[in-house]
């Protein structure tokens, strides 16, 4: 009986090790002092971080990625939040079609989206411009905003909006003073997802970033074709920390919003 308990625990432990280990190795290698990839590192140091922070060939794509992701956050959060508010109130047939269009980037294989976008954007001379990256990444980021805002909208007690309206608030005031504060965590989570979606995106970037809008993942990809020196490990570790921090924040926000919702719904009889 005791063995029955220990055996599955050790199996689960091994699989969790398989999940976490590769990421841990990348982080350790990034602090290596060796000039080549070796594990375990002979000694530790920050030389690969120095190599990254002192090389404009790495810093420029980093800034491109950050700017593109920030623009995507603004565009996707604005369009996505508006649309989520509308879709929830659409007649069913229309809602299914609209949701299908908006959520389809989650299902359509990345390469199909990428070459479709490349095919059309190249005709209008957009390839190789940061604007093209923003326009394309927004399409990929929007599903996350819409699902996140929709989820928080569905948790709102409709009586709150009705109460505001019946007490004489205009629809505008009701939206800004009642609805928006209630869905704010959902909007924030959507914005964080939008940032990460754009910041990590590679397949579309491979086709349309050209030479004028090389993003960080694209730069990493190009570099990996020739070598796998530890600079990439340093860049990877930095992006892991950044995305984990943002996703962790999103996770906590969502959890807190859920708890708030349960607290308010249990307070109401």
């Amino acid at each position: 009986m005791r063995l029955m308990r220990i055996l599955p625990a050790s199996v689960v432990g091994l699989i969790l090790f398989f999940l976490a280990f590769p990421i841990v190795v990348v982080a350790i290698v990034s602090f290596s002092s060796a000039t080549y990839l070796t594990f375990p590192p002979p000694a530790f140091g920050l030389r690969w971080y120095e190599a990254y922070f002192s090389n404009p060939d790495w810093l420029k794509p980093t800034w491109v990625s950050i700017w593109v992701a920030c623009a995507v956050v603004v565009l996707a959060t604005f369009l996505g939040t508006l649309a989520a508010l509308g879709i929830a109130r659409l007649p069913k047939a229309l809602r299914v079609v609209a949701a299908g269009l908006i959520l389809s980037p989650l299902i359509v294989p990345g390469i199909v989206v990428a070459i479709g976008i490349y095919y059309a954007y190249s005709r209008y001379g957009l390839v190789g411009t940061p604007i093209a990256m923003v326009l394309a990444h927004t399409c990929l980021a929007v599903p996350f905003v819409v699902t996140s805002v929709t989820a928080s909208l569905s948790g709102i007690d409709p009586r709150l909006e009705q109460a505001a309206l019946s007490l004489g608030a205009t629809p505008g005031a009701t939206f800004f003073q009642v609805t928006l504060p209630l869905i704010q965590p959902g909007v924030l989570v959507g914005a964080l997802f939008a940032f990460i979606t754009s910041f990590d995106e590679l397949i579309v970037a491979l086709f349309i970033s050209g030479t004028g809008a090389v993003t960080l993942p694209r730069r990493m990809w190009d570099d990996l074709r020739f070598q796998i020196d530890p600079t990439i490990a340093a860049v990877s570790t930095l992006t892991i920390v950044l995305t984990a921090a943002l996703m962790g924040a999103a996770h906590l926000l969502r959890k807190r919003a859920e708890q708030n919702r349960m607290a308010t719904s249990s307070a109401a009889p």
Partner: protein
Amino acid sequence: MSEVVQPASLALAVSRPKTAPFDWRRAVPLLLAAPLLIYMLVFYALPVVAMLLRSVNDPTWTLSHYATLFDDVVFQKTFWITINTSVTVTLGCLILGYPVAMGLVRAKSMAPFILVIILLPFWTSVLVRSYAWMVLLGRHGLVNEGLLALGMIDRPIRILNTPLATQIAMIHILLPYMILPIANALRQIDPSLIRAASGLGATPFMTFRQVILPLSMSGVAAGTLLTFVLALGFYITPAMVGGPRDITLSMLIAQQVDQLNWAYAATLSAVLLATALAILAVARKLPGVGNAFKTSMR
């Protein structure tokens, strides 16, 4: 249209003022959704459709590009590799994912820790995770060094740039997509059922086999389909760690675009997309899967 209705509605003109503002309000949801819908059509859907159309209108309207696929050896081999890889990866995820999902649901104080370990790789980009496997599986990578040290091999074996490397890395990347829906289904099992089974004398294995497993099938089905459909479209991982000759459908498409062979690339894209959509369409008909999908996508 309004002109045709005019004579009949004149009689109802008295009730009009009441309904007119209501009608305006009904347009608000559509007006809110319209900017995004137009945006998605212009910058995403129409580009993809225009590209796909090249498979049937190049040089004139024809289905010949699809017809040639039947004797196209390269396509058939690629399609087979893609399906084969996806099946292997999905099975691997199922075997490794189910125990972890059970561990996650059963663990009490350890649950947040397990969740972080599952989510940390989930939050890391596919590129970085594929790179991690390049580091581990390379000729002088940790796996080779470890096997050498243990005396299991005499000289480094080739793992990187083989189908095995692709499968290992893809299982690693897709595992969370399997774990989370299964854990969701397991969480919804009424604990009193499990207590009842063991109270009636079932061994832990019998309880698992006859109570837990059947009740978790909706999660298993959702996780399996999600993993399989995502695996079908993989491009970055097989391109980075896979063998030079083990080309997946996505890689073949990219290659054809590089050679500006748009008609062929579009045909292959249509096949890939149709395969993914067909699997999802079948999946939604299965009982319980639709709901499990919805909860796991959140």
